[in-house]
């Protein structure tokens, strides 16, 4: 029934099983979380602006670092990519909707509940969780009333992610347009397929780890308590067995986005499509056998350290292939520099810098010096902010005309790009120096020799935070923009550009015919 529109009012959103509505809700939810998590980052950076304690107590500072990470990882980055998947995967594979639409609704609506619970811990006795997002025992067991709520909200986030991942895998494997065999799928679909498998593999592991924390705390078990014969380090192994694939869960879909955008604006096909698929699969496989590189100082046998160092260094190879392929895609093209392309180029440039510090961190003796310092903070923020987040911005600008039917304000978009890029570097580049000079992470106050770079980083962070208001302005004014054509850009590839802009409530009621599938990739 192609002609019936959405229901009216709030029930449209509460009961919806439409992939576009659910995608929109995911995206708005994650943007909200991005601003909440971002304001926590600004509390952190304001306190660190100068030495001495000015604004918050150390306990609250630790709550802010912990909550900032949990909200950004589980509330902002992951749901944003699930939102993109919901919107774009059916459009890109020519499917009428996701394969499991009711579960889709359910996996979204769990999230506001999960984060409502998590945020409510800020008001509880003993405050929010303050033991770091890594939740290492025994420290995390010192959390106050918030503890069971932390565990419960992590469980809910995991359930939501697992259901989202199942839905994505089932949709991709069963609902592709005729003639779209696996190796012909767009890169964004490919990277999400791999990401979804990673999610299914590791979210239950996290659930198991936090459940053991819960029983250690309340039911007298001693999984991680040395006094009862348990092992606190075992938690770290289990956590990072989840945690390392988790970082690829946050970056692989961004790889996919960039692999869609660069060819469009270089007016040239993606270089080495198949080797990009193999590289992403290779990264996903390696992500399962490198976890202990997060814990080189924990006291491991030499053979273990050597294995994890070599395996970690190997990741540089497929990651390098991806970067070289993007550059080769640009080479010989006819490039233009609209906002999505700018964000994608900055992604390639700045993600590579994060990759370099990643290789440095793999070298065990050097890692012993870098570990738990601001060098690590600089590293993972380079891959997460100008990496994942810039990938998300690029995707939003790229598909916004398809979603809304209007072109966004290009001047404001470019301003958003330049302000974000300048401030993100001003924030995170000095952190490399701080870490090398010896400043540990997760401290509310520091010795005076670290003062200048901290001030610089704090100014950058405030600037970066304010720059994001430009993005909100772009979103709020998009309806005033010129009407978008169906193809939107000059030479995009893929089925999503064969449907009208804005994409109607129901698309591909009947699968696209072979000819359309083939032509859309020319």
């Amino acid at each position, binding site marked *: 029934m192609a002609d019936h529109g959405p229901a009216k009012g709030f029930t449209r959103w509460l009961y919806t099983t439409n992939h576009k509505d659910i995608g929109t809700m995911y995206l708005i939810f994650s943007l909200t979380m991005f601003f909440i998590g971002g304001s926590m980052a600004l509390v952190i950076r304001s306190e660190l602006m100068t*030495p*001495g*304690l*000015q604004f*918050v107590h*150390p306990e609250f500072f*630790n709550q802010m670092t912990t909550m900032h990470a949990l909200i950004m990882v589980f509330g902002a980055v992951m749901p944003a990519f699930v939102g993109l998947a919901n919107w774009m995967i059916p459009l890109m594979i020519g499917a009428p909707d996701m394969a499991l639409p009711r579960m889709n609704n359910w996996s979204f609506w769990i999230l506001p509940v999960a984060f409502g619970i998590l945020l409510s811990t800020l008001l509880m006795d003993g405050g929010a969780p*303050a*033991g770091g997002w890594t939740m*290492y025992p*025994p*420290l995390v067991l*010192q959390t106050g009333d918030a503890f069971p709520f932390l565990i419960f909200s992590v469980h809910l986030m995991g359930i939501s992610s697992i259901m989202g991942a199942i839905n994505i895998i089932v949709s991709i494997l069963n609902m592709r347009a005729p003639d779209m065999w696996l190796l012909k799928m767009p890169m964004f679909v490919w990277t999400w397929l791999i990401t979804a498998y990673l999610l299914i593999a590791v979210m239950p592991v996290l659930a198991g780890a936090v459940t053991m924390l819960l029983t250690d705390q309340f039911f007298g078990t001693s999984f991680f*308590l*040395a006094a009862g014969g348990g092992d*606190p380090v075992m938690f770290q192994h289990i956590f990072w067995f989840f945690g390392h694939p988790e970082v690829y869960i946050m970056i692989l879909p961004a790889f996919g986005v960039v692999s869609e955008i660069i060819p469009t604006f270089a007016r*040239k*096909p993606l*270089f*080495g499509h198949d080797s990009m698929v193999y590289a992403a699969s290779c990264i996903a496989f390696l992500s399962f056998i490198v976890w202990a590189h997060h814990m080189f*100082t924990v*006291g491991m046998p030499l053979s273990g*350290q050597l294995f994890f*160092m*070599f395996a970690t260094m190997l990741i540089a*190879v497929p990651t390098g*292939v991806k*970067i070289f392929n993007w550059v*080769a895609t*640009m080479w*010989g*093209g*006819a*490039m*233009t520099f609209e906002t999505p392309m700018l964000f994608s*180029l900055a992604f390639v*440039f700045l993600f*590579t810098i994060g990759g370099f510090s990643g*290789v*440095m961190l793999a*070298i065990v003796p*050097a890692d*012993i010096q870098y*570990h*738990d*310092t601001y060098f690590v903070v600089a590293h993972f923020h380079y891959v997460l902010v100008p990496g994942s987040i810039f990938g998300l911005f690029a995707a939003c600008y790229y598909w916004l005309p398809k979603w809304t039917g209007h072109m966004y304000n290009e001047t404001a978009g470019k301003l958003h790009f*330049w302000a974000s890029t*300048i401030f993100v570097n*001003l924030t995170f580049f000095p952190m490399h*120096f701080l870490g*090398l*000079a*010896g400043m*540990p992470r997760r401290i509310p*106050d520091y*010795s005076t*020799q670290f003062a*200048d*770079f901290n001030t*610089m980083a704090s100014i950058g962070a405030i600037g970066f935070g304010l720059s994001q208001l430009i993005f909100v302005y772009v979103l709020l004014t998009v309806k005033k923009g010129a009407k978008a054509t169906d193809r939107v850009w000059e030479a995009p590839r893929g089925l999503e550009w064969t449907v009208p802009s804005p994409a109607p409530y129901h698309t591909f009621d009947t699968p696209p015919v072979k000819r359309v599938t083939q032509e859309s990739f020319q």
Partner: protein
Amino acid sequence: MIRKLFLSVLGLVWASAASADFALNMREGITELSTETYALHMLVFWVCVGIGVVVFGVMLVSLFLHRKSRGVKPASFSHSTTAEVIWTIIPCLILLFMAVPAAETMIKLEDSRNPDMSIVITAHQWRWHYKYQDEGIEFYSSLALPSMQARIKNSGVDPFSVDNYLLEVDRPLVVPRGAKVRVLLTSNDVVHAWWVPDLAIKKDAVPGMVNETWFRADVAGTYRGQCAELCGKDHGYMPVVVEVLEADAYAAWIAARTGSNE
């Protein structure tokens, strides 16, 4: 507008760079292994710079040459097996080139056999306990009083007026120069990490486990570090200070410490 913003940021960076002594790089430290660690760090750094120059160089040339505004026609090639094999193999070789010296240093780092002395370090929330195994000396080491007073929120004390703000303790760990010191680490409560950058040692103190590491300080002096694993609200306030003394000064220190026991 963008240019103005950029210039003012640049000006700010420049102004603060001129006024402060900036530590930009890792310290070389005072042990054989800290020097090796520093050399490894610089090796990987320059390899990354080299790769960066090539990759970003090609990218920048492409950004300049291959734009639509220069009226170029886009090429249509989409793969080259030769190129892809080359840029898979070369990184493997570069990695091997870095992995070998790293492994050599790691083997030395793990070799804590035949120490001249052993110190048991027990971490507490939020101070360190040092116990000299053979000398029968033991004591707690906590944040020094001036820092303790200045660190309170809105204390009114300017941190810049406190010597070694947050990096000073009441009783430092004292070791002789040139001796191989074995460090045995454990914790009384949560996980902590004992770190002195100049010794290139960072090791977790885990409750219920004993971790082992070692160092041999080649230069006398005072070396400062901090707890490096989040351990609760005062994680930022448990510094490590190691004083390396010449053999005779160390003997005098031992005598003074044990004198009261005799």
